[in-house]
């Protein structure tokens, strides 16, 4: 019996060899999940690939693609004395037009970090005189958890819980990128946990309409290597199909129960993406039946006029057109300690990942 580690090494060597053999021309593969971006760095996948295979990050970090206007609105809410903001931790330091939630917190705003959206219900129950607003950010993986929380709030009869929704949908963003063409993508490494919810069907257009292959991929080093192998193999053969490398977690139809919960509370709506602009039907808005939980509808607030930092190239980075090191502020005026743009804030942001794991290679 060989050991598991030995098996993994053998398989990795096999994929590595096949990728090198098959990559006879330069290919650009885009990963559209911040969790993949980090996994690729941590496992040192780039070092295992031949020069012909380039991995670029796409608009896969929900915090990064959230435009300044949303943050400005969240900041405006946080300044109200009757509001408690509940948020995932990585939103805290994202710079808005002139402030951030972290800065507001330092000035006394009541901002609570939650691990689960459900935690905000406990906060709301304990502070009936306050209005608790959950910053509902995230892709299809996260959006059902916010929807379920709205249903739970309704069931519990909570009258002081709201969501500020900036949920985004991955497939429409891929379509927008391919239509614009600037990223020159030869294949997609598709996000495993988004797919666990939506399944395979929403990606079929990649191959059918754009002749671009896609592989739904897991997050272990071997998963990523295998997915790259499956992409390179298709490209070498001149084929384009959708493959599912992550079957152990992604059934073809995803999670219909989660989608039903999502669909009860939210409906598709146009949404603004940082760096890409408004993409039709790429976001989620609270349905009319749940309007009393929708912060902008139930508690209108005025935000400052939105400005983007003039030097930040985060938009181009999110489209896969600009490498972080090509931004003049990267590693100088902009670091994870003092981020100028959202791509440097979240650990999953492309700029932050290159800064943290790039081991100085970006300095070359």
């Amino acid at each position, binding site marked *: 019996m060989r050991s598991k580690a030995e098996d993994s090494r053998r398989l990795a060597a096999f994929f590595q060899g096949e990728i090198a053999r098959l990559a006879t021309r330069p290919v650009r593969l885009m990963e559209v999940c911040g969790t993949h971006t980090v996994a690729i760095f941590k496992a040192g996948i780039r070092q295992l690939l031949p020069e012909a295979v380039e991995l670029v990050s796409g608009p896969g970090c929900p915090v990064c693609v959230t435009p300044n206007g949303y943050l400005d609105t969240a900041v405006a809410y946080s300044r109200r004395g009757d509001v408690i903001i509940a948020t995932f931790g990585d939103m805290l330091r994202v710079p808005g037009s002139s402030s951030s939630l972290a800065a507001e917190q330092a000035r006394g705003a009541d901002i609570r970090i939650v691990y689960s959206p459900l935690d905000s219900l406990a906060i709301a129950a304990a502070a009936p005189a306050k209005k608790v607003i959950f910053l509902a950010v995230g*892709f299809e993986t996260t959006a059902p*958890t916010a929807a379920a929380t709205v249903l739970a709030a309704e069931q519990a009869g909570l009258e002081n819980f709201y969501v500020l929704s900036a949920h985004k949908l991955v497939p429409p963003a891929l379509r927008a990128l391919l239509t614009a063409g600037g990223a020159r993508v030869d294949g997609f490494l598709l996000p495993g946990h988004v797919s666990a919810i939506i399944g395979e069907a929403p990606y079929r257009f990649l191959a059918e309409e754009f002749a671009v292959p896609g592989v739904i991929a897991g997050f272990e080093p071997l998963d990523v290597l295998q997915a790259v192998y499956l992409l390179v193999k298709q490209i070498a053969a001149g084929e384009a199909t959708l493959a599912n490398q992550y079957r152990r977690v992604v059934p073809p139809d995803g999670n219909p129960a989660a989608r039903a919960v999502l669909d009860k509370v939210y409906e598709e709506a146009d949404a603004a993406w940082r760096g890409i602009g408004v993409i039709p039907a790429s976001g989620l808005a609270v349905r009319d039946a749940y309007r009393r939980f929708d912060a902008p509808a139930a508690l209108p607030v005025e935000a400052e006029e939105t400005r983007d930092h003039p030097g930040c190239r985060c938009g181009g980075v999110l489209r896969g057109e600009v490498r972080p090191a090509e931004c003049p502020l990267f590693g100088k005026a902009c670091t994870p300690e003092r981020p100028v743009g959202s791509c440097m804030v979240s650990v999953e942001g492309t700029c932050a990942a290159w800064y943290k794991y790039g081991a100085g290679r970006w300095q070359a």
Partner: protein
Amino acid sequence: MCLAVPAKIIDRQDMMATVEVSGVTRRVSMMLLPDAKVGDYVLVHAGFAIQTVDEEEARRTLELLEELAGHEE
């Protein structure tokens, strides 16, 4: 942000469950995965079980890969 961790359901109470992740137990909501049972491995994201981990599929994939790598030697 889409990070999700595998956990084993060790107890279920209506729409909540107790799961174990490397020796630590915590409570998660089953609202998004109502059919999962005690003993199942599930993926947990933001306090919710969001999908079942198919152990059998995981084993099959590995076997197939093994075979593939073996043939090429």
